[in-house]
């Protein structure tokens, strides 16, 4: 899932300080699951913003709405009936959702309430870790199912650097050395020979370095 977290309230207040009425839009997908922008968080942020405003002797009217997904136009369209009554839209979705709202409602300012962090997995309640960088050319088949691009601080493809110590990355004792994980796993699978070969230089163009990515499935297109 996409993992995000709420921006500091001050920053959000900064966006909407001149507004009287805002539309606060949550998303019931990834950001709900990672506790950043679901219906619950929309309620909390709404309460916090209203409170911050009234502390300053101002009134803020907040309309709360949580869409099934902000990354599909049909859902985004659901706001069309009433969005115009508000001075601005604040999105509690990932960066994708913010942009979808912005592109659909051209005459309204759309502000992000979240910082979109990474694509990751939940490691138990309240802990998420990065797992994928969407490089467009998956190497996991050669690395024991553990991604050195997303999980090695230097994205090394040919084994651990000299900073790997006790299974941890040189950048922090909290971070596992991805290569240690790869080696442990391949050793367990008796597939260490896969690492003997030199991994060639990677094509980064599908990773976004070739410009914004777009995918078309002709068979599905209408």
């Amino acid at each position, binding site marked *: 899932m996409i993992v995000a977290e709420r921006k500091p309230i001050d920053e959000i207040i900064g966006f909407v300080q001149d507004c009287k009425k805002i539309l606060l839009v949550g998303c*019931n*997908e990834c950001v*709900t*699951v990672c*506790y950043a922008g*679901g*219906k*619950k*968080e929309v*309620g909390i942020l709404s309460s916090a913003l209203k409170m911050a405003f009234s502390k300053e002797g101002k009134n803020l009217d907040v309309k709360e709405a*949580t869409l099934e997904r902000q990354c599909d136009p049909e859902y985004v369209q659901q706001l069309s009936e009433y969005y115009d009554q508000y001075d601005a839209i604040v999105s509690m979705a990932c960066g994708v959702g913010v942009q979808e709202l912005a592109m659909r409602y051209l005459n309204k300012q759309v502000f992000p309430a979240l910082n979109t962090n990474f694509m990751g997995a*939940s490691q*138990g*309640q309240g802990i998420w870790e990065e797992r994928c960088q969407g490089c467009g050319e998956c190497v996991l088949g050669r690395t024991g199912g553990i991604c050195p691009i997303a999980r090695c601080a230097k994205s090394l493809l040919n084994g651990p650097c000299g900073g790997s110590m006790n299974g941890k990355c040189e950048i922090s004792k909290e971070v596992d050395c991805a290569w240690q994980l790869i080696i442990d796993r391949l050793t367990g699978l008796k597939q260490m020979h896969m690492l003997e070969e030199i991994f060639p230089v990677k094509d980064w163009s599908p990773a976004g370095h070739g410009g914004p990515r777009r995918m078309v499935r002709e068979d599905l297109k209408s």
Partner: protein
Amino acid sequence: MVKDKTGAIMVVGGGIGGIQAALDLADSGFYVYLVEKSSSIGGKMSQLDKTFPTNDCSMCIMSPKLVECGKHLNIEILTLSEIESVTGEEGNFHVRLIQHPRYIDIDKCIACGTCAEKCPKKVADEYNTKLIKRKAAYIRYPQAVPLKYLIDKKNCIYFRKDKKCRACEKFCPAEAVDFDQKEREITIDVGAIILASGFQPYNPAISDSYQYGRSPNVVTSLEFERILSASGPYQGHLVRPSDEREPKKIAWLQCVGSRNTRIGDKGYCSAVCCTYAIKQAIVAKEHSAIPLDTAIFYIDIRTHGKDFEKFFNRAREEIGVRFEKSRINSILPAHDEENLEITYLNGEGKVVREEFDMVVLSVGIDIPKESIDLAQKMGVELNHYNFVSTGYFDPLRTTRPGIFVCGAFQGPRDIPETVTQASGSAAAASSLLSEQRHTLTKEKEYPEEMDITGKAPRIGIFVCHCGTNIGGVVDVPKVTEYASKLPNVVVAEENLFTCSQDTQVKIKESIHERQLNRVVVASCSVRTHEPLFQDTIREAGLNPYLLSMANIRDQDSWVHRSNKDSATEKAKDLVRMAVAGASKLSPLYRTKLPVTKRGLIVGGGIAGMTAALNIAGQGFEVILVEIEKELGGFAGNIRTTLQGDNVRQYLAGLIEVVKHNEKIEVLTETSVAGFSGTKGNFKTVLGVGASMHHREVTHGALIIATGATEYRPKEYLYGEHESVRTQVELEGMLLTEGEKIKGWKDVVMIQCVGSRNNSNPNCSRICCQQAVKNAIAVKEINPDVNVFILHRDIRTYGFAEDFYRQARQMGIHFLRYKEHEDPIVEKAEGKIHVTFKDLTLGREITIESDQVVLGTGVVAGDTEDLANVLKVPLTSERFFLEAHVKLRPVDTQSDGIFVCGMAHGPKTIDESISQALAASARACRLLSQDYIEVGGIVARVDPELCASCLICVRACPYEVPFINNDGVSEIDISKCQGCGICASECPAKAIDLSHFEDMQILTQIDALLEAS
């Protein structure tokens, strides 16, 4: 013609044992008379501050049981009552009781406390071990059940001085004082009787050597409990009685009134004092603002209970409680007359004088004179220490058929053992009267509920004066007037006592006449009164969840007496909040699920078989599953008990009876392969027979009785040298190889093999008794043999202490070795050398022995698979974990699954039998219901909103939510406990806890703050 048995049971004694027995019986379809000689139930446990080994607050864990007992439709509590005689026989007893007057009408008393407040007479408070005073009009303790005051005739001025005073009568707002009450004789017919009259703490004043009664700073352990208690004489501040200063040094003296045949023939070990002294030392250190030195003077530390050894280790290793293995020479007042000087021999054999600020006497369990008289009146025999005499294999049955016993009157017991025996005795009594189940119990019928869907709220509010309790502080008419103008309110009335019978009638009339569909009562606590008012509106055809209460007494008039105006304003706030909340209430329904009236027992040892027979005896089918080819379990290795009972004969008989019982289906070579369902309706997949063919069985309850195994030693040349054996192996030799034993000159027994060490920190409980038993047996076969028992503490708790004494008198040597310095066992031409450091002599000793016998511990069997399948937790030593160490000792955390015998922890056969009966009682309590009600206040998921995020699945402490086949969260209402944790974690706001929905809470917040 045989007369029908009576479906009622009398429980004598309202301590924790009596309460548990009463609840189990009443919940299983029997009408219970709970007879208590004092003014309220609760017994000794109500006086304790904390309970070992978890240091839970005693009153906190007990009070729900008190309340449950107090309001149970089928438990009649007879306080201030004593048994005069018991005639008749098993199945049909006639009991004659005397009930002493309370001088306060129990139906009128509203427990406001005015009588106590106005009473001018102060007397020593027994509940607080006379450390402070109470009034002659009083209540034993604030949580007492029944919560009704009484007048202590002995001290009351009215009774002592020609009917003067009458202050209580004058001020009582409920007109409840009645000086004319007389002693009442009651005759009750019951089918069985359970004796649960408990114990009294040993009175150390009998001996003058303890300075008890002379120095105020020498206190008994029960007095010390009160000192520690937040509700005690010093509000929980640890001070000593003489000057109320914080002590810096406290000594505990163990075995006061225990293990001593000289003073008052207390030859038994009281079994609980070591662990409670450790608890008190830990709690005292926690309470103390200054560093506190705590020293426990002991003979042997006997922490043989489940996880108690860890508690002991924590006390000495982490918390720094000092343990002095020493007999005290003397205890004398120190120079300042307040401190005490203890003279003792220290570990090195030197005489030490040490001053303490305070001394706590760890007094033992004693049987009071009244209990001895009671036994005599009932025709029940006592043993040589005046405890009730029972058979080893039938430990809860007295000598008079139909009369059972549990708890400390049967032998020294701690709380979980008492609770276990209480349930066990209930099982035994239920089995006796099973045909009479539900013949005398009451059940309430209610009219059909009104449908309120789509109807606007019509709220009636009843504001209570509670005599002057509320009315004396809060301006009730003003509050009522205010309430009448609140939105949706159609009726607002004030009542002198809203809880009185006539007001209930009034409320019902209002509901009918004004078509009320919500009711608000502004009075006292939901905890005590919600059931009453819920019942009232139910009788008028309203769903009970359409009631809302505002507590304007406990939360207002009682606590803000000095400012009547602000108390009135606060009452308005609370009423406004309750009315707003009420308008959002909706009816909740409970679903009835039929119960599968069959038990499944896993494990065919003595515990499993005992439970099976009792369940069958109570009239239910049982499937008994055993993994081995034969029934019998671990007991098959045992010849006799320490007391000399023939285990083999008993076991053979038991197996025969079980096999021929038509309600029991025995499946050997069978194991559990799968498990699902909820209490009342489980489905278990069994792998049956050598071919392991799968068979699915349905049942309403499950008992785990899978036992444990003997530790297989890796140490002391075991398996390498033929003359190194375990105690179990030695026991096997006693019958067949007597000649060989006659040839032995020196035998060394080593204790704590595989117990009380790093890999198994717990005490295995039974090995000391086993060693004493076999040592005596060896000595009887070969009187010339020298038997040396090398131990760390001899733990012959309870009456087993007699045999320890006998062994010493027979010349068996008990030598103490040091922890972490285990004896060394070496081969040496034809002999085995055992070398160890003797702690008493302080030097190394080598014994040349013919035979080394290892007291091997008890270790859990392969419990993990079963625990996984059943989803019940294990302890770190892989024994099954009970739901609550103290008060739910045979329940697991999963409703409907119970545990007994060695699967729960090491124990002797009689203890396993008691526990098996207890597990059966708990299981039959469930099986005796025709259906179980589920639902009510539970969490519900809106599948439309659910994001399937798993957060509820992870957050629920009971592992109830799961993602269903539709890919959304689902909560099984039969398992939900209603805590609301999931609802408050759900990031999609898809879960709400009914009756505490977000909208309902936020409405209350809004209403409360709207005036600010």
